[in-house]
Each structure stands twice: as structure tokens, then as C-alpha cells.
């Protein structure tokens, strides 16, 4: 890919809303220690349920209270992130376009599971009452690109709107899509990232798979290194993160300071040899994706200072990812686990990791670390994501250099 400028960040996360608040939280990167109190659904039926939600999320504070009633949580998270990104990048001021215009700015956003909240709510009505009584105003929320569509409506993004879905790899794949859309002139600038919302269905699904952290009181006291080595189970998270991405020349002509540059992407899919298994952690795919991303950026493995990994507490996937990172970058490279701090936010996961990368490239110390220690000021970050089916993607980010 061509190097692209990141000129803004809109983020709604468990560690803060907005770039400044998020970066402040990253000054002391630590595993999630929130109460795990559940606001998005009634968790009384799930004793020991602990998730990393965006605490006290109040979209009205950012969007006003009109028009929020039929929006689901996923949409609200994404629309707030969209508004923040547009203003942080200087495309808008006080809600109005001041640089660029609606028909030249678009959004390319990953999401893994859609609005399970809307789907299950309507299914509940259809099953327990009658499908004739489902709320038509909520029906559009069941399509997977609904949240993205609302983001365009609320923020007037008309150049293009592309929803991307590739599980945990989606937000990194969105970078590759955005690079192509910028190259083909389909937009001047794009908001790129991902969103995922907590819901009862998401919790129940991953819980039934046995993928979540065990119900032991002291799990939050485990260090990220211990969690990674023990495969303690994932802490389910949520949020939305969007990077404002544009060609270098546009950032320069707008006089915007670049927060960081996106410069490489790689992906690979290597399913198991046998037909029996569907779920499959593939270290070979991760290795190939990471090596390709570094080569795509025109760099060598020695240039990578730290990896923003997808390590989440899922033992088999973490081991595969760490093994791949070691094969490409050696055993001493510093590896951080953004998900230890922010939770496993699936379709948003790669975007959260890239948001952390932006902070590190701006001078903050990387963490929470699961391996190694960065030996110098961070100039290059590799972001990695493992899919559940043998897929893997990687992105390379760099500190801005004079062009």
C-alpha cells in the first residue's frame, strides 16, 4: 500500500472516550480493572459475568438527545466515534464541514457480529408473541451495515460507505480497503476502523463456547503475561475506533499534523489440512500476514519496535499468534496486548490496537506488555489480528517522517 496519513482519531472505549481521554488512560497501561458492571443487558441471570463495557456511556452528551430512540448500542458507539474522528481530524468544526466536503469523505468500518441486540430483540418478539408485532423501526438495524449507514446519516459522509466483515481481522482489512479506495479516487479521505457492541447474545454465545475468562475472583489480578501464558480466557469488550486516513498530500495541503502513518498491510488464510475442524488458529497464516505487511511497508523485521497483538486470553490463538510473531521478529521483540486493557472487541479489536499504536508513536510507552520491552522510542508498530478460521491480518504503522 501507499503510505497514508492518520490525522485524527475518534474512539469510544472502556478506557476513555475521545483521543485525549483515551491517551490519558494509556499513560499507565494496565489490565482492565473495571468493576465489570453490566449496563448493556440484564446480567442477573449470569453470576460472575464480567465484561469490559464503555462505562456510563451517554451518547446524548455527544449527539444531543434527539433521534436516539430507535438506535441500537452498536450504532450509538459508532456514531459518537464518527463525530469525534471528523472533528479531531479537522474536517469539521462545531458540526460543520470546514475542510473537504460531504461528497469527498467516506467511511470504511469493520464489524463482526452486527446488531445482535436488534436481531435477538426481534426474534424474541417473533418467537414469544408473533412476528406480526416486531417493531418496523428496529428492523433496519438487523442488517449488518446499519450502524455504518447511520454514521453516514449523522455525519454526512457521502463519498462511500463500506462495511467490512472479517471477524477479528476486519478492522485491519478495512485499512487495505481504504488504501484502494483512496488510490482509485473514490474518496479524498476515509474514516477507517471498527465497532462492536456488547449484548446479551454476544456474551451468551462466547460463554457457551467456553471462550471467556473463568469465573475466578482473582483473574483480574493476573498480569497480562500470566494471562497470556495461562490462556485464562477472553474478557469480552466493546467500543468503536475510527482513524481519519488520507493521502499524505492532502494532509500537507490542509496543514494537518499527522498523528501517525499507515504503511503496510498483509493477510493470509490457511485452513486446517483436514476437513473436520472449522475453528482453527493458524500460526502460518499469521506469520505470512505479518511478514507481508512489513515487506509491503518497505521495512525489515528489525525495524519493528513493538507489536500491538490480538492476544486476548484464548490460549490456542494466543500461542499461535505469539509463535508467529517470534518467527518473524525474533523472541525479544516487545509484544503488547491491547485486549488485556480494553477487552476483546472483535470487529473493533484491530481498530483499538491501531488507536493504541497511534498513542505509542506519539511518545507514550507501549503496554500492557506480554513479552519483551521496547528498547527505544517507538518508531514502528506492527498490529496483528488472528481470525477464528485460519485467517490472519497485519498492519504496519510508523511515526510521521518528513515527506
Amino acid at each position, binding site marked *: 500500500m501507499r503510505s497514508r496519513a492518520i490525522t485524527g482519531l475518534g474512539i469510544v472505549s472502556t478506557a476513555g472516550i475521545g483521543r485525549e481521554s483515551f491517551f490519558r488512560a494509556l499513560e499507565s497501561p494496565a489490565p482492565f480493572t473495571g468493576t465489570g458492571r453490566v449496563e448493556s443487558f440484564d446480567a442477573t441471570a449470569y453470576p460472575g459475568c464480567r465484561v469490559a463495557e464503555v462505562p456510563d456511556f451517554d451518547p446524548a452528551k455527544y449527539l444531543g438527545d434527539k433521534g436516539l430512540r430507535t438506535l441500537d448500542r452498536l450504532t450509538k458507539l459508532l456514531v459518537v466515534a464518527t463525530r469525534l474522528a471528523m472533528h479531531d481530524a479537522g474536517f469539521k468544526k462545531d458540526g460543520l464541514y470546514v475542510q473537504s466536503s460531504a461528497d469527498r469523505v467516506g467511511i470504511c468500518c469493520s464489524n463482526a457480529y452486527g446488531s445482535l441486540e436488534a436481531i435477538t430483540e426481534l426474534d424474541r418478539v417473533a418467537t414469544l408473541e408473533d412476528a406480526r408485532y416486531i417493531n418496523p423501526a428496529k428492523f433496519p438495524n438487523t442488517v449488518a451495515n446499519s450502524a455504518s449507514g447511520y454514521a453516514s446519516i449523522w455525519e454526512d459522509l457521502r463519498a462511500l460507505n463500506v462495511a467490512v466483515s472479517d471477524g477479528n481481522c476486519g478492522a485491519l482489512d478495512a485499512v487495505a480497503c481504504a488504501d484502494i479506495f483512496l488510490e482509485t479516487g473514490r474518496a479524498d479521505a476515509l474514516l477507517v476502523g471498527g465497532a462492536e457492541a456488547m449484548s446479551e447474545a454476544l456474551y451468551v454465545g462466547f460463554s*457457551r463456547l467456553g471462550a471467556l475468562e473463568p469465573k475466578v475472583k482473582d483473574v483480574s489480578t493476573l498480569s497480562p503475561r500470566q494471562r497470556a501464558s495461562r490462556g485464562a480466557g477472553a474478557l469480552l469488550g466493546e467500543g468503536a475506533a475510527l482513524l481519519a486516513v488520507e493521502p499524505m498530500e492532502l494532509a500537507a495541503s490542509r496543514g494537518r499534523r499527522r498523528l501517525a502513518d499507515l504503511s503496510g498491510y498483509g493477510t493470509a488464510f490457511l485452513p486446517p489440512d483436514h476437513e473436520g475442524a472449522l475453528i482453527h488458529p493458524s500460526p502460518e497464516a499469521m506469520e505470512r500476514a505479518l511478514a507481508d505487511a512489513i515487506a509491503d511497508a518497505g521495512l525489515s523485521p528489525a525495524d519493528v519496535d513493538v507489536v500491538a497483538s490480538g492476544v486476548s486470553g484464548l490460549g490456542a490463538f494466543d500461542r499461535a499468534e505469539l509463535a508467529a510473531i517470534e518467527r518473524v521478529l525474533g523472541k525479544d521483540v516487545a509484544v503488547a496486548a491491547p485486549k488485556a486493557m480494553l477487552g476483546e472487541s472483535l470487529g473493533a479489536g484491530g481498530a483499538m490496537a491501531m488507536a493504541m499504536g497511534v498513542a505509542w508513536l506519539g511518545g507514550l510507552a507501549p503496554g500492557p506488555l506480554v513479552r519483551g520491552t521496547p528498547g527505544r522510542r517507538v518508531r514502528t508498530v506492527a498490529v496483528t489480528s488472528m481470525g477464528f478460521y485460519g485467517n490472519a491480518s497485519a498492519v504496519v504503522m510508523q511515526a510521521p517522517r518528513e515527506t
Partner: protein
Amino acid sequence: MGATRVLITGVGVVSSIGLGKDEYFRALAEGRSGISPVESFDASHLGRQVAGEVKAFRAQDHLTSAELRHTGRCSAMTLAAARMAIADAGIAPELLRGPRTAVVIGTTMGEADVIASLDHAWIKSGPKGITRALLPKYGSTLLPIHVARAIGAQGMVLTLPAACAAGNYAIGFGADLIRAGRADVVVTGASEIVQELQFSGFVRLAAMAPSRCQPFDLNRQGIIVGEGSGLVILESEEHAVRRGARAQAEVGGYGLSCDAYHITRPHPDASGSIAAMRSALADSGIGPEAVDFVNAHGTGTRANDLAEAKVMADVFGGRKVPISSVKSMIGHCMGAASALEAVACVMTIETGIYPPTIAYETPDPDCDLDVVANVARTGKADVVLNNSLAFGGYNAVTCFARPGVLPPPVPRRANGAVGHA
């Protein structure tokens, strides 16, 4: 980027009017309807009872037993259509294996029957009622994953959930992957199944017609949902030439835009759709005068038809380009719609036959269009546009052309500029 021609060398179809491109297009050319009483769930109390279900599809005829265990109906149709497209392209299995093949599939809901089963079990019996083995089958990206597993593709596996424009998004982006040099072959298209929740949703939106879908007709009563899968094999010209493949069509380019207006209704001034169609022409390096036929989005709603009539008037001026909607025959196959229609566009280029809009009885005077009324028409089919609009304000237009008629490829931008900005 952009100096490579992208060729379509194979197509595959699972539709309510036929499996495989020959059955499908013969039925379209004959104006046969695939609308019939719903059988996959009990629709007797829902106020509407017909849909374009694919009743002849038996997954076991197309999938291995392991694949049958891993797939819902939507993935099964996708895999079947992929196999048909690959057979149609005559491409050797070893040429599909490896990192230079990508799979990009569009959809609205993906494995909708899997999530319905999960939900119903959960609602009736609580979390413990959920069959664990079913959970991994509800993934966001399983449609392309199943195809990539089957053919050994190791490049990008991506789902583009672009609602009812998803097929055009997938095929357009697939072409971009080749033009960007990220793939030599892309297996792409879109799939959707008819399912109770979305059927009821359209009924509740008062968008569903009782018996027939009548695009551009004054007395239209709305959409009829359908299902199916349409897949195409895209190859770089170099790759196709090297293996001696025959190109059925060229993907000239595509255009995207977003209305940013309403979550379900198209913008009444159609400015987004107009921008998308102009962008598709610019991306293809041609002007509107080159277009011979337009496959309409043509859902059978007044809002859609008026918006599309505005697009045609704006883009083509006084020239009335023939337009038709296959949704009059197979219904609105949602995510799969524009992919099934892309296959129809390729077949139109191959045969010179414009499929008709059936049940077209009373022309809507507000839609001043040259609709291919009730019986197929033959005509010049060098350049064909495929129009689509979707929930979320999504607009996408793809441009397909007879191989050799488009200007030589140059690095070109979707706003019409040539070369890098």
C-alpha cells in the same frame, strides 16, 4: 494502479428459476417467474405468503459431508455457486490455490438460518439450550471462508455486508483488488436466503407485495423477497491470457456513494445514485453514450422507481436507454440481488438478449423509461450497467463490457481523472 483489465471468465448461479447460468438465463429470457408460496417457514399468519425461494437447491448435491456439517443454507448456496462458476471458467484447481486468489462475498445477513436457530433455542430453553456446535457456524465472514477452504485460496477472505447492493460492492472491490495488484483471481459475488425475520420485517415496513413484483408499473405494490447466490470469477487479463481462458465480459469499473439521508429510503433527488453511476462510467473510461442497456435495481417500490427514473434522466439526458428489472421474476434477493443481476448482465453481453420486466401492465407516467416490457428484446449489448441501492443509503453501480470494446486500461480514477492525483 488500474492498468490491468479485469475479466470475468466464469459465472455460477443458484436461483429460484434455475441452477447454473444456462437454466437461469433461459428462464429470464422466457420471462418465467420464480415466485411461489413460502415453504421454509410458516407464513400463513404474516399477511404475505409468497417469496422467491430456491426450491430445487439440495446442498448435498454440491457439498461434501464435512462441508454440509459446517454450513448454513447461505454458505451452502455460495459454495455451490462458486463451484459452478469455477467449472464455467474451466480454471484448473492448482491455479486457484495459494495467496494470489482472494474471495470477496457480499450479503445482508449471511447465515440467517443459523442465528435464527440459535436465537430460538436460547429463547425457548435458555443459554444451555444452545447447541454449542452451532455457534462457530454463525461467523461474520463464513461465506468467503467456506469458499476459500474448498478451493485453497489463501489471499484476502472478506465479507462486504452492503445490504441490497452487496453484490455490486463485492464484485467492484474484487476488481479493485486485481487492479491494485493484490490478487490475480478473485472469486466474488453475493448470497442471501429467505428467512422469517427479514420476511416479517419487510411486511412490517409495509414494503411487501401480495403476489407479484411490478417494477415501474403504476399499480406496483412493493417488493417480494427472494434468495439465491450469484458468483463470478474475476481474473487479471494477464492471468486469463496465460491459461488461454475465454473472457465472457470485462469489468469496466464501478461507482459507490452514500445518500446519508435515510436508513431505508433512497434520497428523493437521487443525487447519490447519480453520483455512483457517473463514477462507474468514469472508472470505466467511457461516457453515457457508450451504454447499451441498464439492469435496474427495480424493486417494485415507488420510491425506488422514481429515484431510478431520475438517475436515468440525469445520466443519459434525452436518450432512452433500455432498462429492465429481473426482480419482476426472481424477487428481491437482497444481498444476492445485484450479484445475480451481474450474472444476468454478463449473459446479456454474451447473448444480446435483454431480459424482460414481467407483470409490466400500466406504465407509471412518472417513470419515463424504455422498460423492456414483458418479453425479452435483443439488441446491442457491448456495455451494460448494473444499478443497485440499499439500506444504509448505499449506492453501487457496476459496468460490464464485451471484451475489447472499452478503451485501453490506464491508471484512472473514479472521478474521471487519469493518472495519479
